[in-house]
Every structure is written in C-alpha cells, then in structure tokens.
C-alpha cells in the first residue's frame, strides 16, 4: 500500500507567512480516575514559531508534560479527556484530526525527547534498529538502508564509533549517550517542532552541557521550533527565548527570558527565582515558597497559588485571576502583578 505523505493532510512547511508554527489554545486535559476528576491542564495557551525556543517551566504536577503529550497525541484516552481547547499546527487543529493524520504528524513533523532515555528506549532491540524504525515505518525504507541512515544519525549526534555501536543495546551506553540516541531518533525525519521533556534532568552537568549544545546546534541547522520542558531555571536562562511558567495546570506568567529574570510579574515565578541557590555567589538563607503544590483533585478556590502566596488579598481566594496583559509579549495571572513587578529583585 502506498503511504500518503503528511502533506496530504497539512499544508507544506512554511506556507503560512507569519502564523506561528504551533499554537496551543485554551487547552484543557482531565483524567477521569476512580478518586475523581483530575484537572491536569486548565486552559493553557502558548505558541511557537520556527527557530524559536520556548521554555515551559514548572514543578511536578504542574501539567507541563501532559500539555506536551497532548500535542504529541500520546495521552492514553481514556483515562485522559480533552474537553476543550485546540492545538493548531500550521493552522490545522490536531485534536480533530483522524488517527491516521496524527500518525503522519507525530514523529515526522513534531517529535519528542523524553526524560529518562533508559526507560524510553526498548531494551530488547538494538539502538540501530530503533533509530531505523523511524525510516522503515514513515519512509518505507528497507532494513539495510534504514541501518545506514541510523549510522549517519548517530554520527550526527556525535556518538563515537557509530558504525561499530549501531548493533549495541541501550544498556551498553552511558546516560549521555542514550540521550543522544533519543535525540537521533527524534530528529531522524527532520521535524519542524521538537519537544524536549526534561532532556537533561537525569544527567551530570558536564553531559548536560554537551546535550544542550547539541540541541542548540541541531536547532540552528534546521530552524526547528523547540519546546523545552524543564524545572531547571539555569538551563532555561541559558537557552530560552521566551518562558511560560506553569502552576497547577495553568500558565501563570508568559515573558521573554530577559524580562522574567530581571523582574518577575507573578509571585510564583518570583518565589522560584528567589529560592534557587547560585553557583556564582553564596547567598543568605534561601527563600522558600511555603507549603506544598496543590492536590489536583482538590484545588484551592480562586487563584490556585493563594495558599502559598505572600501577596494574597481577599479576592484571591474567590476570583480566579485571568491572564492580565502587561505588554505585547508579557502576561501574568495575578491580580496584583503590579505590586509583584515593583517589589522585584534589584
């Protein structure tokens, strides 16, 4: 059977002028569990243009990975349900696309790198087989040509002695090398959007630096849009163009990278920035955001951050703050963003 190319469903690359490559619009994701409905994502919107790096920052349970999985179409549904929202890629809503259509986008035009390469790779197949699978499935290539391509890709992500190592299994590689294999798989089909979910969290700093350098280089080469999902404010400061900070399934602040580090406009972003130790100077006692992240089954009323917030007023308990626009490129979901912005770090 002849495989249709993805262009049958979606317009070709770069055909849409100024429209962002990928737009997430008011996305909601719920998980229907026995304990109740977990609202993991509550109205998330962001956009990504070609060549741009968007960092989605948040702690565990903030919904950053679920959003990414919704974009990739790899959520298990059920238990997951997407009651509202759109994910537009080149203007086409991915959520209403047929499964066949999604398969053509997934891996081919939007690809993803996972956090834990050891559990993301299949332990019983060689890495060469797993990389070449991309070509066999999406391009209908023969095993032999696929393997050739796999070696090329392993060279590209700078795995030493690629030709000899192509028949090795994942456990025979170090953590950094495994992450390179993941990257090789994700860029195999020249995707336009790459989603990297905590790509360096499990790695040493020296290896992290290697991987981030590799990603930046690949991005420059092919003008990919990169969504970097992370909790590491250091990595974000190094590579991001713009940042979306997530808390309890919502975006609480959108900002260009320089602005947010200079003057955060949401108490949560401010708290995060104040709470990290620095390698370049020894500070006093760390500021700690008090309390715990909310239970998604039992969310606080009003602003989800209000039980932990030092700027809290009465209306925070009752009114959910909308995303207030601060400037054309900045927004904050805090009733008192002006106060937060003024009382900012010097």
């Amino acid at each position, binding site marked *: 059977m002849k495989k249709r190319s993805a262009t049958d469903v979606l317009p070709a690359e770069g055909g849409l002028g100024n429209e962002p490559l990928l737009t997430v619009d008011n996305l909601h994701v719920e998980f229907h569990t026995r304990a109740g409905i977990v609202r993991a994502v509550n109205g998330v919107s962001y956009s990504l243009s070609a060549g741009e790096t968007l960092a989605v920052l948040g*702690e*565990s*349970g903030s919904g950053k990975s679920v959003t990414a999985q919704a974009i990739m179409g790899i959520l298990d549904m059920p238990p997951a349900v997407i009651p509202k929202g759109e994910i537009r890629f080149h203007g086409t809503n991915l959520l209403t696309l047929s499964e066949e259509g999604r398969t053509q986008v997934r891996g081919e035009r939007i690809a993803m790198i996972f956090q834990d390469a050891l559990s993301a790779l299949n332990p019983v197949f060689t890495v060469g087989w797993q990389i070449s699978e991309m070509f066999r499935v999406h391009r209908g290539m023969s095993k032999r040509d696929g393997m050739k391509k796999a070696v090329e890709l392993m060279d590209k992500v700078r795995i*030493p002695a690629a030709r000899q190592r192509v028949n090795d299994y994942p456990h025979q590689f*170090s*953590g*950094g*090398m495994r992450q390179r294999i993941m990257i090789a798989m994700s860029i195999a089909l020249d995707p336009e959007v790459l989603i990297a979910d905590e790509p360096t969290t499990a790695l*040493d*700093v*020296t*290896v*992290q*630096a*290697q991987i*981030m*350098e590799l990603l930046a280089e690949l991005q420059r080469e092919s003008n990919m849009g990169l969504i970097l999902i992370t*909790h*590491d*404010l*250091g*990595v*974000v*400061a*190094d590579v*991001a163009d713009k940042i979306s900070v997530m808390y309890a399934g919502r975006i609480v602040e959108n900002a260009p*990278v*320089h602005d947010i*580090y*200079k003057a955060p406009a949401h108490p949560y972003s401010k*708290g*995060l*920035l104040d*709470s*990290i*130790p*620095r*390698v*370049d100077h*020894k*500070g006093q*006692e*760390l*500021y*700690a*955001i*008090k309390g*715990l*992240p909310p239970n998604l089954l039992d969310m606080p009323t009003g602003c989800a951050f209000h039980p932990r917030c030092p700027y809290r007023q009465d209306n925070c308990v009752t009114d959910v703050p909308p995303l207030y626009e601060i400037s054309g490129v900045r927004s904050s979901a805090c009733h008192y963003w002006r106060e937060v912005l003024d009382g900012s770090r010097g």
Partner: protein
Amino acid sequence: MAAAADRILEVRDLVKHFPLTSGVVLKRQIGAIKAVDGVSFDLNRGETLGIVGESGCGKSTLAKLLMALERPTSGSVKVNGREIANARGGELKRMRRNIQMVMQDPYTSLNPRMTVGDIVGEPYDIHTEVAPKGDRRKKVQELLEVVGLNPDHINRYPHQFSGGQRQRIGIARGLALQPEVIVCDEPVSALDVSIQAQVINLLERLQREFSLAYIFIAHDLSVVRHISDRVGVMYLGKFVELGKDAEIYDRPAHPYTQALLSAVPVPDPEGREQRERIILQGDPPSPANPPSGCRFRTRCWKAQEICAEQEPLLQIRPGTAHASACHFAETHDVVHVN
C-alpha cells in the same frame, strides 16, 4: 586547622577496589574497579563538607565507606577518634547511631511494605534507648512535620507519596537518632525547586540547632556551594581539589573543577553569550582501567608528557591557597562574567 577535639570524622588514604572476576567455579581476579582510590579529609563538628563529581566518580561508594556499609580495601575512617572501618557487632551499632545517612533514591530506599511510621520509627527499634515505646508515634509525627509532611499520613505507604515526599521520609529517618554526622547522598536532587529550598533550609536549621556535621554529596554544584563550608571535587575515585567554598568556586585551580563549574547553567540570562564554557568531550574513562599519571589527562586541554608519567598529588600549589592535584594548577574564575 581546627583543634583535634573538634574533629569528628577523620578519613585517611581510603581505598575501595571492587574485584572483577572471571570464571564460574575457579574465580580468578582479572582486575578491579577502583571506585575510591586514596581519599583523605577531615570533618569538624558543625561543618559541612560538600563532595561533587560526575556519576561514577566514587562519591556514593565513599558515602558507604563512611557508614561502614562497605569495608575499605585499605585506609581508615575514624569517628570521634575511633576506627569504624573495622568495627563489628555492638560497637559498630553504637558508632552508627552517631553517623546516619540520607539516601539518594527515594524509590528503592524505602520498603514498600512498611508504613511511613514504621520506616521513620525503625531506627528506634534498633536503638531502643533513644525513644521509649510509648513516645515513638509522637516522635515520628514530629519528624514528619519537621520535614514538611502531614503527620496524619503516618499510616500511609511509600507508594502513596510523590518522589519528593518520599525523599523527605528518608530525611526524617536519617534525623531520627539525632546523630552528630549525617551523610547526605544527593538528598535534594529528586525534589522540586520550591521544595528543595525548604529542605536545604531545614538541613541548615538542624545543623545550627544540634551542631550537626554533614557530608553533602551532590551533583548540583549550586546547591553544594550554598550549603557547604568546604568542598571536595572528585574525579575517578580521587579528590582533585579540596578547599573552602569560595576557593573552589571563585578561584578553582584544577582544570576539571573549571570545566565542571563552567558547565553549570547560571539562572540569569544576562551575558549568557559571553559566559565561558569549557565543554569536555566524551565520558570519563572506566575506573577499572584509569589512565596512568593524572586521571584527568585524557580529557584535559593542559595535558603534557609529565601528566602521563607522574601522578599529581593533592597539595597546595604555587599561586593558590588550597590543595589541588594538577601539575599545571592555576586559578581561573569561570563562574563570573567580567
């Protein structure tokens, strides 16, 4: 150097080789993983010694040696002047009350079939003199509260907690016997940023209150700087540099320390293009077959012939005020942008 009375932990030439064998019936030793290969340092009361290095450099094996969970191949570990490395039975048990550990992996270090109350209270079963049976539940609840967990969750099982919360259970267990030394092996690496700060502050507060001494092992150099008074940098089983926190971070002398520090992302985008970055190529060599002479020479940009022939000792070198193990040691600030 502080007076000997303040010294709580004394480590001398500590070596741990794990034998590599071949054959099934007649096992022959064909080599050894040199996990820790000659480490010496002191720890004073109320002090924090941070130990940093990449995975596989031997920092976790070092932690186990300090706890006498592994027996050293050679060398000595003295707690309050008494040798723990060869202690046995009741003597070892008494010594271990004084030196406790917070483990790295909260998923495997907590027994899934025990409740949180049993896990945190287990030290009291072994050291019954610390808390009478009637007090235990209250004590455990206090500990849970102190580490930021809900004391009402005392009857829950580990799987009902998130990874971050589990690590706090481990910390509560480490604190239970109120030891003088706590060996923390990556205690905050599994925690979220906002929770990490709470735990670091907690560790610091406990240190002040009980004048605890910490061995703080972590790969996050920013966290180590924040909490440590002195820092040791490990590479392939050896300390390559040891000094006060400002000496290591602001005036590093060993090329490996410089590379490590330059790789740490600074949470400030200002001047990110100007920041100096030394990207090391490849992975560290195998500890089964470390390079001759200086172990870092295969990845070092300063390496010359002498580095392959002569092993550089950890000593104070010209132009620096702290010990480093490099023939060409030279201080060079890589962290701050000019």
